[in-house]
């Protein structure tokens, strides 16, 4: 990226290089947003609705485009054209800015997200720290939205969201520590390079501590992203639509855009930290092919976790505020602390790790997954026996 | 390496002990927390003993912490005063409606803060010590939550204290921009190089001013004293006793190290400021104390006046003056803990024993307490042969030797003025008639503390040489050659 801009700057000696960098970076940022982030977030919304529909034995949006695939474009267009209502009693400037702050907070995370070995906007040496820092700005936007709406449901939603993000930041941070300890770096590419393509070299299977860390991270990330079962800020049965209650049109959509986009960020983070990121076997010397393979690997891994998050959302009921606090402070934080100390101890006792332990972890995980899948299919077969054959086929 | 660990050891033990106190308190069934209090006292004793054992270690940990004689002296002083305040509290707390066992651990933390302040040879560490002490004392001042005055005291102390801390930190930051270091010795070295560079002079003055304001607040020097009367009055009496003695000692420990070591090259600029602060502080403290009807407020203004006397010693800044300030702090601690101890011993629920008139005819009902109180009042006035007299004598003599004749004259006149209100208390106790509802008998723990304080006050007056000698030894190595 930098080299490319350098070349451009050299071609136009009359223009200041700083200006070239600025414009170049802005253009590249806009490109990433429009070509990647918006479609990913949009398509995620369609996928989510289809997945829920399947799980709930419905069909879901299937009219616009093949299988309803273009539904997200239609929704986006509709919301863009809708009237942007600003209620009379709101704090107008804050009300208007809030959705942008939320979106900016999540889009900025993409700066340090790795797509492939050579594809990353900026491999910051504090990558993971940067991401957790910049995404915590989302909460400011949500509080702004909640307060400026001048509506008690909005405010409760905003406050719940702030509580949630602040609280779960701690277990999430604690679950990142062991990974950082193992990799010896905060850089995202560095963390991925410390792992390999094979599951036995993933951080997740380094030791039981890391596996628990991975669970903590995923649960904590769901909570930070306001996803079910932690969607208390938008609990529609209690708070209408939480902090987004007073919003309409595109501003309202921006909040959801951030939520769906954030799902992808969570997926990338989980696969980067625990599952080897874009690592593929070095099967070819062709850089482009390799990059495409790496990108595909990363995307599939990330999207797997997006899918799991949707699955969780369609399956689990929402927790109560007190349960949610108990889970964070009485379980996740202490477990996270034990994990950090345990990993550090492991690294002193077994500096190279233990390949036997890794194989055992992988084997156990595989066994659990196989058993789980068997049960799922068993129940699906029983439930769908003789009716709705199409669904059981689709699930299989 | 071992030296580094050794010098940190008293601090490490103290911190662990304070943590242990929190845990023990959590499981202690006894509502009056006698055991916790004793554990705190033992912990302070252990800390003091360890600091004596590992004494005379020069600055370690990147020159951040020193366990030199100065630190050990203040360590002993703070631990003794803290232990005395804890013992005073045993009976007092339950009666005052304070059911918080954290009381003792907070007081322990406050003592740790004082210890850090005295041992710090780095401005940042010193600041952290100051904050540790202040945080604990803010909470202690407001620990009686059902009492509005206690709430007010805590809030006032906290808001003003936070402002003062911010100013102090800003001053430290500015000093760092000029000198490139926060280590006291390095700051001093850099200042003596750059002092006359001219360009940095204004920043330097600003930085020094901000640092002085920060410390001035903690020792309640005029014009940063406004919080003291309200906070002393509103806080529980035992906490006030702690604040008036140990907190002040900590403030002076940090102030003297900073002014006499780090800012030594600035002596010429600082002298008039300190001179003025000393004169105004003692005069204002004494004059306002004359008009008080509450004993606590009176003692608050008296403590402001004593800050002024102590500042006389800091202004002089010589070895002799420094060691006499150290001695004075010990004497002042003994007599003030005693005076507040008498109040705490007699106070009962709903009857704070805080007005001077509450003590009418105390000599008839509680002859021993009245006698002790009279002793402390006389010592505070500076009447021979008590500790307060010897302290003043040494400080003023040192100031004379440093050529501060007029300041000593002002101080002497002030001592005369102060006699009026101190002796007023004695008159009330001995010559007024006791009211119909007699004060209850003194509490045992508090009575013991008062008795010990009285003995120490007399001993410091009659045989000052051991303490004075150790103060002189403690101070001798502080000033950079």
């Amino acid at each position, binding site marked *: 990226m930098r080299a490319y801009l350098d070349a451009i700057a050299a071609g136009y000696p009359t223009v*200041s290089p*700083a*200006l070239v960098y*600025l414009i170049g970076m802005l253009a590249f940022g806009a490109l990433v947003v429009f070509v990647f982030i918006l479609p990913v977030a949009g398509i995620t919304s369609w996928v989510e609705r289809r997945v829920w529909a399947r799980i709930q034995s419905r069909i879901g949006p299937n009219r616009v485009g093949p299988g309803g695939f273009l539904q997200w474009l239609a929704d986006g267009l509709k919301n863009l054209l809708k009237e942007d209502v600003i209620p009379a009693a709101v*704090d107008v400037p*804050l009300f208007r800015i809030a959705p942008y702050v939320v979106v900016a907070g999540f889009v900025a995370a993409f700066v340090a997200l790795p797509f492939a070995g050579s594809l990353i906007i900026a491999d910051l*040496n*504090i990558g993971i*720290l940067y991401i957790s*820092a910049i995404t*915590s*700005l989302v*909460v*400011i936007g949500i*509080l702004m939205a909640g*307060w400026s709406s001048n509506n008690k449901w909005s*405010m409760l939603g*905003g*406050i719940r969201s*702030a*509580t949630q993000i*602040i609280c779960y*930041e701690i277990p999430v941070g604690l679950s990142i520590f062991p990974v950082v300890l193992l990799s010896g770096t*905060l850089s995202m590419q560095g963390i991925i390079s410390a792992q390999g393509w094979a599951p036995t070299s993933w951080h997740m299977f380094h030791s039981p501590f890391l596996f628990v860390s991975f669970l903590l991270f995923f649960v904590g990330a769901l909570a930070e992203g306001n996803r079910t079962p932690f969607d208390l800020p938008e609990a529609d049965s209690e708070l209408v639509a939480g902090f987004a209650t007073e919003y309409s049109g595109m501003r309202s959509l921006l909040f959801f855009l951030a939520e769906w986009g954030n799902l992808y960020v969570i997926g990338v983070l989980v696969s980067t930290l625990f599952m080897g990121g874009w690592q593929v076997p070095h099967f070819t010397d062709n850089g482009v092919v390799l990059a495409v393979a790496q990108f595909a690997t990363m995307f599939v891994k990330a999207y797997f976790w997006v899918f799991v998050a949707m699955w969780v959302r369609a399956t689990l009921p929402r927790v109560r505020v007190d349960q949610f606090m108990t889970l964070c402070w009485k379980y996740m934080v202490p477990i996270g602390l034990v994990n950090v100390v345990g990993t550090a101890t492991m690294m002193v006792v077994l500096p190279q790790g233990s390949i036997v332990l890794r194989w055992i972890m992988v084997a156990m995980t595989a066994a659990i997954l196989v058993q789980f899948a068997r049960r799922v299919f068993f129940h699906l077969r029983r439930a769908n026996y003789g009716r709705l054959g199409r669904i059981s086929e689709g699930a299989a | 390496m071992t030296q580094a660990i050794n010098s940190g050891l008293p601090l490490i033990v103290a*911190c662990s002990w304070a943590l242990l106190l929190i845990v023990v308190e959590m499981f202690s069934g006894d*509502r009056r927390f006698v055991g916790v209090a004793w554990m705190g006292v033992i912990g302070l004793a252990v800390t003091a003993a360890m600091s004596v054992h590992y004494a005379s270690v020069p600055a370690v*940990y*990147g020159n*951040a*912490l020193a366990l030199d004689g100065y630190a050990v002296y203040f360590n002993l002083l703070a631990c003794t005063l803290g232990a005395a305040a804890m013992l005073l509290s045993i009976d007092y707390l339950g009666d005052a*409606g304070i*059911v*918080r066992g*954290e009381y003792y651990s*907070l007081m322990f*933390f406050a003592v*740790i803060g004082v210890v*850090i302040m005295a041992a710090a040879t780095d401005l*940042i*560490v010193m600041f*952290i*010590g100051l*904050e*540790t002490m202040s*945080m604990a004392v*803010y*909470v202690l001042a*407001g*620990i009686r*939550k*059902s*009492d*509005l005055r206690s709430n007010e005291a805590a809030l006032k102390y906290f808001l003003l204290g936070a402002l003062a801390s911010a100013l102090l930190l800003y001053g430290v930051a500015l000093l760092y921009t*000029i000198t490139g270091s926060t280590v006291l010795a390095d700051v001093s070295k850099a200042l003596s190089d*750059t002092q006359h*560079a001219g360009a*940095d002079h*204004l920043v330097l003055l*600003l930085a020094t001013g901000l640092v002085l304001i920060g410390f001035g607040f903690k020792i309640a020097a005029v014009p940063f004293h406004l919080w003291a009367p309200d906070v002393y009055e509103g806080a529980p009496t035992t906490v006030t006793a702690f604040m008036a003695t140990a907190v002040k000692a900590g403030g002076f420990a940090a102030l003297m190290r900073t002014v006499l070591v780090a800012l030594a090259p600035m002596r010429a600029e600082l002298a008039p400021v300190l001179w003025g602060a000393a004169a105004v502080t003692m005069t204002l403290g004494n004059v306002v104390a004359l008009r008080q009807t509450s004993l606590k407020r009176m003692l608050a203004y008296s403590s402001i006046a004593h800050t002024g006397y102590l500042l006389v010693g800091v202004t002089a800044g010589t070895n002799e003056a420094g060691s006499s300030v150290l001695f004075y702090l010990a004497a002042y601690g003994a007599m003030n803990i005693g005076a507040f101890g008498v109040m705490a011993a007699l106070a009962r*629920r709903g009857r704070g024993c805080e007005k001077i008139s509450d003590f009418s005819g105390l000599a008839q009902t509680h002859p021993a307490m009245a006698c002790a109180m009279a002793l402390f009042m006389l010592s505070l006035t500076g009447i021979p042969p008590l500790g307060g007299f010897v302290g003043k004598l040494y400080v003023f003599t040192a100031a004379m030797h440093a050529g501060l004749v007029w300041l000593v004259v002002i101080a002497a006149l002030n001592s005369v003025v102060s006699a009026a209100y101190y002796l007023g208390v004695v008159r009330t106790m001995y010559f007024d008639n006791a009211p119909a509802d007699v004060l209850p008998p003194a509490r045992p723990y508090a009575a013991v503390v008062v008795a010990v304080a009285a003995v120490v006050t007399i001993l410091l007056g009659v045989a000052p040489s051991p303490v004075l000698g150790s103060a002189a030894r403690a101070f001798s190595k502080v000033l950079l050659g």
Partner: protein
Amino acid sequence: MSPLAFYPLAFVCIASAMGVVLSRNPVRSALSLVASLFCLAVFYVFLQAHLVAALQIIVYAGAVMVLFLFVITLLNLESDRGLGEKPVLSAIGFGAGAIVAGGLIAALSRTSLGARAVTLVPTFGTTKVLARQLFGDYLVAFELTSMLLLVAVVGAVVLAKRDGSYEGDEQEAAVPARSEEASH
């Protein structure tokens, strides 16, 4: 640092800092502070202190200010109260602030700091170097800070917890309260 980036950023930083003081609405003040802190973090990035920048955002903009906002919105503080009602006090406040600001500007604009050349080692500001400093030279300060925070937490809990939470003490705690209130 390129002036192209510095001046707009400095302007935003100062403007939002002014907003903290001048805004009559506490929520807007707090949000301006967030903006100001964020700009400071960007300055840290330009000064090669990436880790400090990230920590600045996590700790201040992310955690501390969120708690501020949290409390302000929860209490739903009324705006336009306080010093504004007493013009003398606000005049004194502005006067004192102006004097301090004037002194600082006068002092800092004349320092020799600008003349001093600073050479940075290539590893400056990286996590490893910072960690070595933090756990080496500044170990005492670092550890004692954790102690300080613990004291603050304990203190906050002591002040925030209701007195009745010790079973059986409720009456004991309530009686002095009543008698003391009566004595006022």
